[in-house]
């Protein structure tokens, strides 16, 4: 055991200072698409919508392009198809902070104004500490590992007062992953009902936010078809920092993500990364 002790104390500190310090993503990170819908004509809108498997890029009624970032898996096929095209209408966001309180904030379209940033904390009762119960409602399994990574020395979520709990009866937050498969509807509802109030539902991952690439009789298509969702954390899978941002948003300790609008909406950092892509 002394060897473990020496190993433990001999290693440098690696823990992030997030959210007090910055944690920049690597330069080529593909978090989600950013769109300037006004810069896309009808023909281009049809071409781009056809590249998008989860339907994040879709055409609105008048033929203009709309981006629903709650469906985006960051594959980048839309950016690939425009390779060499000088018009700067679509780019990839490398940002980690993607969580929002309302799905509307993740949608940009020509005739649509994004909802304002919500700053009001949820209840306010949970600012210091959150106990989290996770339920897998049909995920691909990677989100679970990213959630578990919150306990590793790089993220160490306990320093922020965040804890996992085995029983839903002790939980403040229900952290749901997956597009909600049909057999998981009842277990998910029953876990929610077992939680004391006030309670918060967080959808973690693009498939939990919207169903994403999955559709058909096997899936319901997003947690908010079953339960009222308070925080959406898109991402395929959401990175540990993205998960921390979403959980802290549930606690009312950070601000919502900016909208996925290419110019103006996104943070300066994200727009810079997008411009370079």
């Amino acid at each position, binding site marked *: 055991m002394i060897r473990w002790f020496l190993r433990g104390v001999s*290693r440098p500190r690696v823990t992030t200072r997030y959210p007090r310090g910055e944690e920049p993503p*690597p330069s080529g990170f593909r978090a989600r698409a950013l769109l300037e819908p006004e810069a896309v004509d009808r023909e281009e809108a049809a071409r781009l919508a056809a590249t998008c498997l989860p339907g994040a890029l879709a055409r609105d009624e008048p033929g203009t392009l709309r981006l629903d970032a709650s469906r985006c*898996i960051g594959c980048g096929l839309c950016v690939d198809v425009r390779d060499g095209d000088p018009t700067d209408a679509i780019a990839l966001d490398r940002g980690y902070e993607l969580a929002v309180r309302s799905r509307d904030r993740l949608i940009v379209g020509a005739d649509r104004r994004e909802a304002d940033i919500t700053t009001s904390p949820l209840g306010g009762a949970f600012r210091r500490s959150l106990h989290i119960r996770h339920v897998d409602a049909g995920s691909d399994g*990677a989100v679970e590992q990213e959630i578990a990574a919150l306990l590793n020395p790089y993220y160490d979520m306990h320093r922020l007062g965040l804890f996992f709990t085995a029983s839903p009866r002790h939980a403040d937050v229900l952290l749901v992953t997956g597009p909600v498969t049909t*057999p*998981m509807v009842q277990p998910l509802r029953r876990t929610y009902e077992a939680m004391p109030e006030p309670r918060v539902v967080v959808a973690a991952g693009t498939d939990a936010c919207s169903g994403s690439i999955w559709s058909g009789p096997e899936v319901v298509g997003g947690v908010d078809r079953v339960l009222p969702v308070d925080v959406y954390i898109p991402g395929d899978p959401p990175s540990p920092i993205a998960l921390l941002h979403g959980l802290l948003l549930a606690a009312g300790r950070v601000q919502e993500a900016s909208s996925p609008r290419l110019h103006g909406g996104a943070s300066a950092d994200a727009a810079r990364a997008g411009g370079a892509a």
Partner: protein
Amino acid sequence: MIAWRTDTVTASALAVDLERLGGRLMMLFAINDAVPPAPPAPRRELSALVRTADGLTRLRAPMQGRVYPAVTPRVAAAHWFEREIHDLFGIVPEGHPRLEPLVRHAPEEAEVNLPGEQDVRLEHRGAERLAGPGVFVIPYGPVRSGVFETAQFLIQTGGEDVAYCAQRLFFKRRGAERRICEVPLEQAVLVAERVSGTSSVAHALAFSHAVESLAGTEVPPRGAAIRRILAELERLYNHLEATVRECEDASLSVGQAQFAALKERLHRLAGAVVGNRYLRGAVVPGGTRIDFDAGAVDLIGSTVADWARDFDRVLEILLRTDSFLDRLVSTGPLSERDAREFACVGPVARGSGVDVDTRRDLPYDGYPAFEIARHSDGDAMARMEVRFREVGTSLELIREALVSLQPGPTRTDLGPLAQDSALGAAESARGETLYWLEPADAHTLRFCKLRAASFVNFGVFNRVFDSQVLTDFSFIEHSLGLSPAGCDA
């Protein structure tokens, strides 16, 4: 390009023919063309793929009615395949010893059993259903304590000894096989990547190998080398995940933190060189969508070198920690006979002495010869030792691939789908991953059958609890390293 011999047999003789053929049953599936979109001449047939010493054999058995004599009594490895076929196609394997819902649970069976609530409905398991004073069932799942994927285990116990453990899966079935055929061909690989998100590369590779066979496309050498780097990186972080979980089970906090930090470094490397921490969006039919510039090659090379040094140091301490070894040695034994009989794959099979590795058996993407790690003990420790040795092999394969990176394109344009069927395979960290594809025309797929490694390895879950106690459960589970997402698809 994987070649096989095809024999057509009658459905009534399928079981006898499969038993006579011997070898390892890789897949058994039904093709039912009556499911739309139906081709001009609809078929209803069973198809079995078997690996023998002579290579691959496909047995096709056209179905007249809906009933045929079950294969399972003669070839045990067919047990889950036949239940799956029964659930999805209504084809009845007559004489199957345990024909109960596998894929489709009745609604009341899908209900959660929260701790303390006694509304358990025991599966009808025939002879293996236990009864007697003091025997009770612990329903573990589908919502389990901790952050785990959804699965349910019905543990029958008298208190400490596990008398029987029944696994119930397919809570997570998302219909991936159907989705793969529904979506445009160039986007279908994105679905395959999300079947088992921790084996995205292996699933993308197996799918892409099948599509490349259909189209007769060759992957350029640079693309193949990048694929090997990605596949081995993926193997590393999955083997680390198993190690982290075992340390957690053994309450070895420092070990858990050290291995978790090592795993995190690999995900950060993945995020930096591919743009996704689980290496998605890189492998496509025809090669790779991404290329590594000189900076990426240097970053991989230097990260892997540092990482290997740190891993070796921590592993050395772990292998000298008695409290860890005590919990794994002789825990969850899987005999070589069972591993062969149930056609196990990956570290689970190799830990029980079975010499099987897709990278050598169905070669792809220019893998050089390497030594395949095996162990004869068959316990949890043997499976972990296989993984530890494979970490070394993977590091060596990454170094080799980095050196062999030649300038050139990383992908070839895909031609029309000319063959009428193809098999794609890849070795994920969990074992052999298979995709069987049939095209509808030159640019669309009509049929997809995928078989993740976890589908077969989950099938032996109830075989490894012989004389085990409740507190061994998590050690056994994590030494098997299973992916419910991959199994359920």
